[in-house]
């Protein structure tokens, strides 16, 4: 219980930090929004009115707490470019991003774990070297190169032309598979190099430990050792890796994949907000993702305790 309270307190301090940074960058030091909102030939009174609506005449602390209230009540204001409420934009786009990113993210980790296990089983042999070489190659390929190449190979007449070039017209399972396949393969290819290398290192470390040698000495079969002793004891680094790569892979990945393939998810609206300088959307997305990531971290810490009761 004390452990949980300690973690929650730690999480609250982090939330304070991430909201403070996003507030400072986008609201306090951000560009003056007055003239994006106001028409030409505005009178002095009109300018003053917009400025006070935006809160520019308020002190720092008041504006920061206003931002916090906006984030936690999800009352995020309206987008400057479309006028739509940011809350309703997010409600529309988040499910699309999840449907798009989850398969690739999960498969990328599973393939990494599988390749890592195979490499460890054949440690030092050619198959291990092949897998290691393959992951270094994957790590040297840019995300952008992979998606361009896959698009050409899978979705254009220059390749096999089996999938739609871009877009997201999902009506059922068939069309979902049509649109999700190329992004999913890209995501797997981008992450598998790093994942394989990471998981292989974790398994190598685990298989060098004394209890594995003891198990082997007692005549446990290689399969038992692999599944029961190595994989099970590696759960903590696996969970950590999985949880901590969510912001990088899912959020940054959706930014790139959705803007490239023109898929209407959170990444695409963030990209549009970046290009248009649409501050309400940008500050909501940055603030909310950072806060939810802190929540994920706190939950991960609690999960450790479930997996391994020794953790204090």
């Amino acid at each position, binding site marked *: 219980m004390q452990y949980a309270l300690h973690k929650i307190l730690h999480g609250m301090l982090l939330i304070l930090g991430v909201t403070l940074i996003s507030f400072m960058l986008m609201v306090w030091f951000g560009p003056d929004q007055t003239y994006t909102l106001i028409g030409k030939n505005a009178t002095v009174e009109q300018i003053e009115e917009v400025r006070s609506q935006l809160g520019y005449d308020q002190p720092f602390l008041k504006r920061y707490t206003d931002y916090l209230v906006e984030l936690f009540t999800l009352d995020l204001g309206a987008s400057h470019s479309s006028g739509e409420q940011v809350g309703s934009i997010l409600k529309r786009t988040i499910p699309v991003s999840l449907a798009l990113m989850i398969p690739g993210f999960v498969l990328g980790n599973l393939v990494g774990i599988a390749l890592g296990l195979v490499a460890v089983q054949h440690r030092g042999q050619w198959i291990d070297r092949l897998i290691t070489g393959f992951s270094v190659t994957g790590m040297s390929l840019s995300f952008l190169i992979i998606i361009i190449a896959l698009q050409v190979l899978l979705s254009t007449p220059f390749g096999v032309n089996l999938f739609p070039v871009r877009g997201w017209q999902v009506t059922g399972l068939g069309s979902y598979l049509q649109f999700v396949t190329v992004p999913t393969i890209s995501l797997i290819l981008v992450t598998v190099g790093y994942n394989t290398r990471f998981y292989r290192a974790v398994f190598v470390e685990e298989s060098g430990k004394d209890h594995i040698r003891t198990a082997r000495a007692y005549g446990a079969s290689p399969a038992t050792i692999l599944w029961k002793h190595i994989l099970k004891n590696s759960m903590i680094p696996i969970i950590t890796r999985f949880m901590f790569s969510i912001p990088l892979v899912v959020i940054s990945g959706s930014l790139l994949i959705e803007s490239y393939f023109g898929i209407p998810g959170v990444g695409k609206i963030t990209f549009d907000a970046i290009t248009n300088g649409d501050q309400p959307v940008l500050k909501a997305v940055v603030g909310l993702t950072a806060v939810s*990531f802190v929540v994920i971290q706190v939950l991960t810490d609690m999960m450790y305790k479930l997996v391994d009761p020794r953790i204090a």
Partner: protein
Amino acid sequence: MGPGRLWSQLRNDRAGLAGLLIVSLFFLVAAGVWAGWLGQNWSAANGGRWESASAEYWFGTNILGQDIFQRSIYSIRTAFEIGLVVALASTVLGAILGALAGWYHGTWMDGAILWLKGVLDSIPFYLLVAAVAFALHGKPWAMHVAMIATFWTTTGRLVRAEVMKIKSREFIAASQAIGLPDLLILSRHVLPNTLHILLIQVSITFVAAIKTEVILSFLGLGIQDGVSWGLMLAESTQEVLAGHFNNFMAASLMLFVLLLGFNLFADALQDAFDPKQVTL
């Protein structure tokens, strides 16, 4: 480990040597561009649209009729500029903050640095860059600032752990006993012993910086003037659909080979310094 022993370790690592060779070759070309000998005609649009490879245009031309070979050569300089600035600055920052946190382990200073690291690690990276670019009103170095501000955290964590280990050793107790001030001990006796971590981190963050530049340039947050492989790839996204692959191939291949070289070299460094340690 001295430079002599490091070299004798590296000499036996064929992949690592190949990596070093690749990086050195690219660096020579970058130096040639800096000196004004190579890639100077990267922006002139003298050719026709999408000309194929010829004696005049080795890799053909792009949509504007610019020489793709010249552009990809000039981009080597851009890559080294971004890589060096970001890798050196973020590693130095990580070394300083990590050393302070490790040395004053358990004090408010350690707490504050760990908190800052936790906060920066919690904001998804590209969103932070977007926010920094937004705050800096599209200044060309917004990208560098954002990368340096986030890339130091890994170096900081590694150096902090190492400094905590070093602090408990006898030679540190001895220098404290003869009354040397903390900062002198840190800079003279502690930080030099973390040099192996810093060297590896420089090569890893170099790779990260170049890869990030590509994505940011595609998103419109990267290089503002000049040319880079990221900008070339961004241009090529339209061209490939029309069947023109020269721009894409040139930028991808150069980018891939340089990154591969750096990754191989970084691996060799890691193996040389600590063959037992598994790389995470």
